């Protein structure tokens, strides 16, 4: 039988050699790499924009991940954004006409989920009149907008706004001879002419080149207009989007540093504190031991989650404040009891007696002889308690009590839950955050299992 490894380096080597340890390390290192690349791939200001809904308006809402298009090309579409327009400026007496023309090809088998036109208009004093017309591959033209936009960016919600739906209604009246009660512009615009052209299930997609023509007429010569047409699909990015069009990939990526930092820091600090306090109590004497152990009992039975919720009601919380509270509530606890029982064993060892006989102080014996004996177990305990802190952060965020400034996995799950994601079948919104939480926990758990096996010779295989 091999000896129990000593020395931190050797312990880590042994752990890395075991299957569970290697897998655990690999998982956590992968997470760590993700966490480290997150600030590069999705800078902090992007994460900070999580609550700024305008930031995400180019994305489709509730889109599945883009890669599902490979699995099922007939039922998923991507987003088409048209922002390249030619410019033509002509003068007619006192009028100036600015004509912007652009085209795109629509080849998806499904209808878009939404159509939106953005008009960035600039003029000196008098509003221009702007008319936007979409010419379909079958030669039919549909007016999307006819009005006098104000200076700056104007959002023309072709699909949602009744004002613009009405324009589509005129087109439908021309084609079908009547106007249905509910108009779905994103279908009508892209449907082959038929009496079902307002019905997503029965209409056929009209594939081909669409041309958008935006005319602006004004008395002012220096008038300018920059249109942008977004034809939203139903799939986007690596992990899809939520109901506010936010890219879940960004949220998932930012969840990694949040979970790793929170879980690791909370676990390292609380376990070390508990180990040292438990050991010191047991080593100093029966009275100190009694005080520490009763305190541990107390902290073990107080319900941390409800208290954190209460604190949250009173104070606005950020992730660091949350971490501090969690640490404060775990100064003593279960680990204190473990380290105490280890000290009670170790203090009977001969080398402790020998140290007393050569005149080492109690403090010196604690730091030189006792703590080094406990440290290897500490690794296992840290790895073991990290998942519970990852879950705690997730639980608080799920309840909406986490840091409101940055996205985290628990928060994504909470928002998915609130939106009824599972009921409506928005699976990507639930599965990915849950999977991330599970992977991190699995990594830590495997690692703690491997550590335990290395430092606890009884558990070692022959």
């Amino acid at each position, binding site marked *: 039988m091999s*000896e129990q490894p000593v020395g931190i380096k050797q312990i880590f080597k042994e752990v890395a050699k075991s299957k569970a340890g290697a897998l655990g390390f690999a998982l956590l290192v992968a997470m760590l790499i993700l966490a480290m690349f997150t600030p590069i791939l999705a800078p902090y200001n992007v994460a900070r924009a999580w609550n700024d809904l305008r930031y995400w308006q180019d994305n489709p809402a509730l889109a599945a991940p883009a890669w599902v298009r490979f699995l099922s090309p007939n039922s998923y579409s991507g987003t088409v954004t048209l922002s390249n327009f030619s410019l033509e400026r002509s003068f007619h007496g006192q009028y100036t006409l600015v004509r912007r023309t652009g085209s795109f090809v629509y080849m998806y088998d499904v209808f878009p989920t939404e159509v939106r036109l953005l008009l960035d208009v600039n003029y000196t004093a008098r509003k221009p009149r702007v008319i936007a017309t979409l010419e379909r591959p079958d030669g039919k033209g549909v007016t999307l907008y006819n009005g006098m936009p104000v200076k700056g960016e104007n959002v023309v919600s072709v699909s949602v706004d009744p004002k613009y739906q009405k324009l589509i209604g005129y087109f439908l009246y021309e084609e079908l001879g009547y106007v249905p009660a509910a108009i779905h512009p994103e279908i009508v615009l892209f449907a082959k002419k038929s009496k079902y052209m307002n019905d997503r299930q029965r209409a056929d997609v009209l594939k081909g080149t669409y041309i958008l023509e935006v005319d602006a007429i004004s008395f002012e010569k220096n008038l300018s207009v920059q249109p942008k047409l977004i034809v939203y699909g139903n799939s986007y990015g690596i992990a899809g989007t939520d109901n506010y069009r936010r890219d879940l990939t960004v949220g998932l990526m930012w969840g990694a540093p949040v979970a790793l930092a929170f879980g690791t820091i909370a676990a390292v600090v609380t376990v070390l504190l508990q180990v040292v306090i438990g050991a010191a109590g047991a080593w100093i004497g029966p009275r100190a031991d009694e005080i520490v152990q009763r305190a541990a009992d107390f902290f073990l039975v107080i319900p941390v989650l409800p208290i954190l919720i209460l604190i949250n009601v009173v104070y606005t919380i950020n992730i660091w404040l949350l971490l501090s509270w969690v640490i404060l509530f775990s100064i003593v606890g279960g680990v204190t009891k473990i380290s105490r029982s280890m000290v009670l064993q170790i203090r009977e060892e001969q*080398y402790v*007696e020998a140290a*007393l006989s050569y*005149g*080492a102080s109690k403090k010196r014996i604690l730091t030189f002889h006792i703590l080094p*004996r406990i440290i290897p177990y500490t690794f296992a305990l840290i790895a073991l308690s990290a998942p519970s802190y990852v879950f705690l952060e997730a639980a608080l965020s799920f309840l909406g009590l986490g840091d409101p400034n940055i996205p985290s996995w628990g928060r994504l799950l909470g928002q998915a839950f609130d939106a009824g994601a599972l009921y409506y079948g928005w699976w990507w919104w639930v599965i990915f955050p849950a999977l991330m939480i599970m992977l991190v926990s699995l990594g830590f758990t495997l690692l703690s299992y491997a550590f335990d096996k290395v430092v606890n010779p009884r558990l070692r295989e022959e």
Partner: protein
Amino acid sequence: MKMTALLSVSGLHLYYRTSRGPVRAVDGVSLELKEGETLAVVGESGSGKSSMAYAIIRVLPRNVQRYCGSVVFDDAGDIVSMDEESVRRKVRWKGISMVFQGAMNSLNPVVKVGEQIMEPLIIHLGYTKEGARGEAARAMVDVGLPDYVMDRYPHELSGGMKQRAVISMALVMKPKLVILDEPTSALDVMTQANIMNLLKRLKRQYGLSYIFITHDLALASELADIVAIMYAGKIVELGSAEDVYLRPAHPYTQKLLRSVPLLREDREPEFIPGAPPDLVDPPPGCRFHPRCPYAKEICRREEPELKDMGGEHMVACHFTGELRGGADGLG
């Protein structure tokens, strides 16, 4: 002219508290040791040898019930009545050091051997790690340890090497007195012989005094100037090695000597019938009387004093004079 004693123990008691009552592990022990002398303490397992050593160096377990008497060491004064800090400063390792029974367990498995040898220097003399390292290296050479041992962990050493490491730890502060509690048990015969030779050499080299604790009379004879025979927490015979080995006066010593197997003599080693007494409830009178073939009425009633038979040969037996010669010693 009589030299002043290096260590003088008198009326030393050490009782342990247990649920069954006090264990009288050391019950009124007195002895003297001069500088440069070696005292061998011999007795069966459980006779209180280690307890006596703990009492002398004042490393007491938590369940001490009674600790009294006096242990005067050199010019430090009485260890029993001294305050803890003075013991720490004046006696521990500078004056008296100890090699604990089962040296294998005297080393912390997760601390490098060299660092453990350096510890006393760092604690007492305020050495830096580098300074202590040089001193420790010298101490290790002294006990014949190769220098790579410095950075090894205890489990990487053989039993003999560990024992040498523990001895070098005891010597690193150059004490006057070293207590060796069964330093060679659990070692094979060759290693045992090597360690004994090492101890002899160190003693000569540094003029050390030893208290050598063993249950092995033959081994004790290699080192001892004076021999103390312990039985049930008491010293039953104390005298020069010559007196005790050649003219044993206590029936227990005689039996003990006859139980040693001898190469030269064609005689079966004897057993001492019965078992050592329970120290919670020792027999009244002479504690050896239930196992003594010569026991009389008085032995059951009265406890014998340790009496000088001449030439500082002390024996605690009611019939000392009469029984002498009833033994044939090692010689």
